[in-house]
């Protein structure tokens, strides 16, 4: 399988000695995390010579214990592969032996904190399937060794996947050389950071400010505006200008903060197509390396808000199968993708989606009516009550504009909502401001649920939810006969993907 003698992973191996340092660092961090109130107290209290000597000894004792503990942890941790199982022996005083069959390993993630990078080591995390998913993690492993190990595991999976019919499609792909699909430079990162939803944060801040103005009213005993006018000599107009400036100020803060976060998270992002799927490397301080193994990708979603559309950029997400405990952790996000990268990913995940005949369907108008009722009419009742009990022109304006706005918005949403059906999968297009698309292979469906509200029953329409191992995809308000036949089709497809070829009615 590998060059020359037995590779290191077939015999009990230790992690890189750097692990001692990293374990110690983690231990101290968690100690500080738990006892910081105590430390704060110790630093702030009045000192007496006697007691500070005592605390110095306590400090030394804790340090010695931590060092011993990290040493023990390091020397007692071994990992190796035996009989197609990955075995991790660990534990200081109580020994634990974790063994995970290789075919249960879903994804292998490398991560590098700042310390890791200093010594060119990576931490390795393996996510496993199953309800009681025991996660395997190694604190530090030499980068080369880790790469060799990952290559072996992926190759093993590839060779043995052939045996199970469930993952057939992926196995036929040849081991292709790595292709770099996307590399984000600072300019692109800047655009991505800029295109985040700042209006939302500004809106939240505006709401906070408005409620703050109300809150301080009772404290001041009179209207806050009057207070400003009388006590500070500020006019009403000035208050609003002041508020406006605060909003602008927070908007700028939000933009800068998001920019910084984007750069920290996605710095030097590399998105690579490998023989088995895709790999993403990114991060400024902590460099994460995530792999998406093709058969484990449940569905794809890509979206763009108006600003991103202007630049032709998309935010791509892979939804991967993960154990119960790791849910949500296994979505892999690639910001700043351009249409050709989306197309590459789409072709890899769902090759037939490019040439396949898609049947496009729109939801019934009931979709609009139900959403208008919930988002338009119900809040309107509250708004009317609010305006009539506590009149102000602002609230009156909101009340009057609420229904037309939601009606217009929901109508646009209805027009944008499209469900594409094909023999192999589903394609959902939706959203007006933020437009998104989802691509799902029928083969990834775990269970189906037909839902009908009271109103939908009267109009003979229904919703259909597809549950996958990484979240759900829903189609709403389609004619009941279509939903029923689609469900039966998908059930049959799940049962015998190869021997089943009929058109969707």
């Amino acid at each position, binding site marked *: 399988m590998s060059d020359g003698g037995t590779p290191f992973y077939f015999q009990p191996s230790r992690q890189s000695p750097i692990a001692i340092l990293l374990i110690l660092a983690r231990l101290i961090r968690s100690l500080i995390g738990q006892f910081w109130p105590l430390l704060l107290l110790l630093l702030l209290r009045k000192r007496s010579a006697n007691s500070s000597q005592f605390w110095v000894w306590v400090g030394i004792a804790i340090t010695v214990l931590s060092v011993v503990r990290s040493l023990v942890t390091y020397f007692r941790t071994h990992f190796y592969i035996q009989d197609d199982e990955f075995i991790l022996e660990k534990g200081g005083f109580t020994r634990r032996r974790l063994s995970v069959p290789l075919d249960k390993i879903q994804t292998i993630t490398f991560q590098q904190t700042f310390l890791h990078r200093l010594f060119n080591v990576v931490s390795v995390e393996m996510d496993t*399937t*199953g*309800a009681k998913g025991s996660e395997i993690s190694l604190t530090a492993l030499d980068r080369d060794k880790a790469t060799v190990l990952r290559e072996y595991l992926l190759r093993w999976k590839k060779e043995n996947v052939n045996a199970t019919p469930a993952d057939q499609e992926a196995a036929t792909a040849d081991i292709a050389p790595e292709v770099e699909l996307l590399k984000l430079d600072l300019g692109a990162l800047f655009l991505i950071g800029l295109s985040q939803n700042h209006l939302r944060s500004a809106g939240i801040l505006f709401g906070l400010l408005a409620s703050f103005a109300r809150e301080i009213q009772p404290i001041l005993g009179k209207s806050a505006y009057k207070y400003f006018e009388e006590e500070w000599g500020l006019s009403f107009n000035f208050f609003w200008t002041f508020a406006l400036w605060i909003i602008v100020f927070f908007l700028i803060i939000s933009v800068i903060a998001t920019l910084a976060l984007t750069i920290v998270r996605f710095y030097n992002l590399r998105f690579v197509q490998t023989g088995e799927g895709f790999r993403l490397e990114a991060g400024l301080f902590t460099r994460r390396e995530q792999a998406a193994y093709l058969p484990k990708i*449940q569905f794809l979603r890509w979206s763009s808000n108006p600003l991103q559309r202007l630049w032709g950029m998309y935010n791509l997400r892979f939804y991967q*199968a*993960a*154990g*119960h405990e790791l*849910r949500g952790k296994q979505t892999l996000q690639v910001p700043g993708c351009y249409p050709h990268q989306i197309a590459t990913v789409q072709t890899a995940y769902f090759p037939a989606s490019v040439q396949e005949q898609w049947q496009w369907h729109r939801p019934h108008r009931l979709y609009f009516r139900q959403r208008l009722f919930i988002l338009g009419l119900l809040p309107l009742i509250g708004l009317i009550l609010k305006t009539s009990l506590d009149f102000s022109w602002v609230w009156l304006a909101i009340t009057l504009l609420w229904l037309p706005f939601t009606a217009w918005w929901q109508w646009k949403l209805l027009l944008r909502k499209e469900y594409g059906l094909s023999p192999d999968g589903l394609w959902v297009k939706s959203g007006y401001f933020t437009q998104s698309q989802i691509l799902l292979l029928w083969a990834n*469906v*775990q*269970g*189906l*649920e*037909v*839902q*009908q*509200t*009271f109103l939908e*029953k009267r109009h003979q329409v229904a919703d259909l*939810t597809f*549950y*996958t*191992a*990484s*979240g*759900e995809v829903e189609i709403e308000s389609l004619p009941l*006969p279509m939903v*029923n*036949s689609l*469900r*039966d*089709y998908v*059930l*049959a497809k*799940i*049962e*015998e993907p190869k*021997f*089943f070829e*009929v058109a969707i*009615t």
Partner: protein
Amino acid sequence: MLFENPQIATTDLPSVEDVNFQRLPPQALKLRTIGWCITQGIILLILLGVFLSGEIFKKQWPWIFIFSAWFLQAAYFFWMARKRFYREGYAVREKDIIHTKGFWLRTQLTVPYNRVQHVEIEQGPLARAFGLGGISVYTAGDSGGDLSISGIEYKEAERIKQFIAQKVGSDE
């Protein structure tokens, strides 16, 4: 290897609507009524306790509203339990299991056997007295796709579990 599933292999796929759903046994309704009695009883006891001990309102008349509100919701849930009970059903098919339920929102969840991770049967102390139990069928990953039926005969739950386990086993 041929595709063998007579219910599906035809071009015009029979709808799940054609399936005869197995209804829950009448004891299940009794069990649910007892559950209703316990919850409503506790709410009523708390209300009575507050009513008798402290003076929250200056006058007595707000209590009329509170107790009639309690009565209305109790009656609603009593009626609802019945409505829901008669709408609930399940079907164990050759290749999948279907569970249908709900009154205002009707749902029909189908889980194919070759997606099943494991099956659990459970039985609470009250259900044991009626010989009832529940069955949960788990799929990979998301909890939304898990199917669980409660208030079927315990023996039936065991039979279904056996059947699914055998199906899941033979698939591999």
